[in-house]
């Protein structure tokens, strides 16, 4: 037991050492940590009231020293709105990625493990989900449940499950025929125990990389849905809906669209850099 602990500890260190070697991955991690801190200390950086209080006198102001990123059509500070949208976007991105990983992972791992009829049935189900365009599926689900943040997360998870199910299924395929699985079966371990104790740790790397990437795409997706007015409802600030607000004022107040878009870009870029770095660090063979 002690020995194993030591080994996993050194594996983590080894991975971290390799991770640090890539400058792109480090830049991604630093940006992500900064965004995370902004999300946690949003209220200390700028009060929430600045992000939602309307001020008719100061509408559509250009960026200045008082309002770093300018103001929107209701005179709200765009800087404050972007800061206070950060926790929302990160929360949506991470929760969609994690929930769909858990559900999709269960479907994918169990179908690869049991195979046969069950696998066929599950994969047909995933095929059905795949042939409906993701955005469209999310839109219909939001139409059913009503437009708010929780329902948008549910809708995005439903559209995302197929991806994580496919990824985890193909990751498990190589492991089921390995001898240690056979040994665990002979030892009398139950199927569930084998899946959780033996298979999941083996594909953890792939799942971790996929989840990181999925956080990045989920942030983009959430912004797109909010852009269509289906996600976070006003006056709560959200990057995608800020861009939607900016659409009408594109000619007169282009600053309204520059900053929120840049925030989405930074979030999605930093997380995908981290994902790339993780993949290279976890499996150096893939790199060259």
């Amino acid at each position: 037991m002690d020995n194993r602990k030591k080994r996993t500890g050194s594996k983590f260190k080894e991975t971290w050492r390799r991770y640090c070697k890539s400058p792109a991955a480090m830049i991604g991690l630093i940006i992500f940590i900064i965004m995370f801190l902004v999300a946690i200390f949003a209220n200390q950086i700028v009060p929430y009231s600045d992000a939602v209080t309307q001020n008719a006198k100061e509408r559509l102001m250009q960026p200045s020293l008082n309002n770093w990123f300018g103001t929107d059509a209701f005179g709200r500070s765009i800087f404050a709105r972007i800061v206070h949208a950060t926790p929302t976007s990160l929360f949506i991105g991470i929760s969609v990625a994690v929930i769909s990983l858990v559900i999709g992972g269960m479907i994918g791992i169990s179908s690869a493990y049991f195979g046969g009829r069950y696998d066929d049935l599950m994969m047909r189900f995933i095929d059905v989900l795949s042939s409906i365009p993701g955005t469209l599926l999310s839109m219909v689900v939001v139409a059913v449940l009503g437009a708010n943040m929780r329902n948008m997360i549910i809708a995005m998870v439903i559209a995302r499950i197929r991806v994580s199910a496919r990824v985890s299924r193909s990751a498990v395929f190589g492991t089921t025929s390995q001898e240690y699985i056979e040994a665990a079966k002979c030892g009398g371990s139950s199927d569930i125990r084998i899946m959780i104790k033996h298979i999941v740790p083996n594909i953890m790397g792939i799942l971790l990389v996929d989840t990181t990437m999925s956080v990045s795409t989920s942030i983009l997706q959430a912004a797109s849905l909010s852009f269509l007015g289906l996600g976070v409802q006003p006056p709560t600030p959200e990057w995608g809906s800020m861009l939607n607000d900016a659409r009408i004022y594109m000619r007169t107040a282009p600053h309204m669209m520059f900053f929120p878009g840049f925030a989405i870009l930074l979030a999605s870029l930093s997380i995908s850099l981290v994902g790339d770095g993780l993949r290279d660090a976890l499996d150096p063979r893939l790199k060259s």
Partner: protein
Amino acid sequence: MYRYIFKRLLIMIPVLLCVSFIVFGLMALAPGDPASIILGGTAEQEQIDKLNHEFGYDRPFLIRYGDFLQNLIFNLDFGTSYRTRQPVIEEIAKRTPVSITLALCGITCAALVGIPIGVLSAVKQYSLLDTILTVSALFLGAIPPFWLGMLLIYFCSYKAGWLPSFGIDSWINYILPAASIGIIYAAQQMRYTRSSMLETIRQDYVRTARAKGAAERTVIWRHALKNALLPTITVIGSNFGALIGGAIIVESLFSIPGLGTLTITGINNRDVPQVVAATLVLAIIYCLVLLLVDILYAAIDPRVKAKFTK
């Protein structure tokens, strides 16, 4: 091979049935009914009920679904739109070519830019050029498509006045929307091509080609690229399938009358026949494209072909 294609086409039938059932069911669960949306908030309940009865919307969900299926299978009729009272297939037939054109333009643009740059980047691995190209691909891949669309509209249309920002009057109108899709997918395809090319140029047959004295250009573009393109083709295929329905946001941003915008209005108006028909058409196109990719795969790769003819 033909048996395989036939089998794949047969599998499509249950998939499409499930798709129609899921969408039909979800739309039935959605709050609100078509008549009250069409007639507006001031309408009397009596009028609303009368119109819903006319649509057959007051019947139970399963009966409506059964009716829809019967109509579809025996009369090849997708039904009549609640909003326009026209057969839904007419509107879809008008819009499908638009969506396909947009997706084709976007994907072609992505492939023409992404593949050569990916090859170049792989051949010059670890050079300054490679770093610049990889970093810019990372940047472009993380841009939200609708934001890129807005930036393109702002700079190319409002500021410079070069290109129109909406409509589909001529091919010029397709440039900006196709670019906002294409640039992002180009970044993705560049990354795929690069990594698959890096794997290929280390293979023995590439070394053999060099050893027998083939020019470097022939080695890269003829011997290596042909093999490296296989995974890229799959990516292009599934991108294309996803794009036809997935360009919803770009369609709405550039006011393009495609299937995506049709579905949005359909969902908002609870126009069930419209939404179900549009989704079905999208699903059919998606399945057909995936099939086409597999056939193409067999046509290009003799190893895959050998599997089918066995």
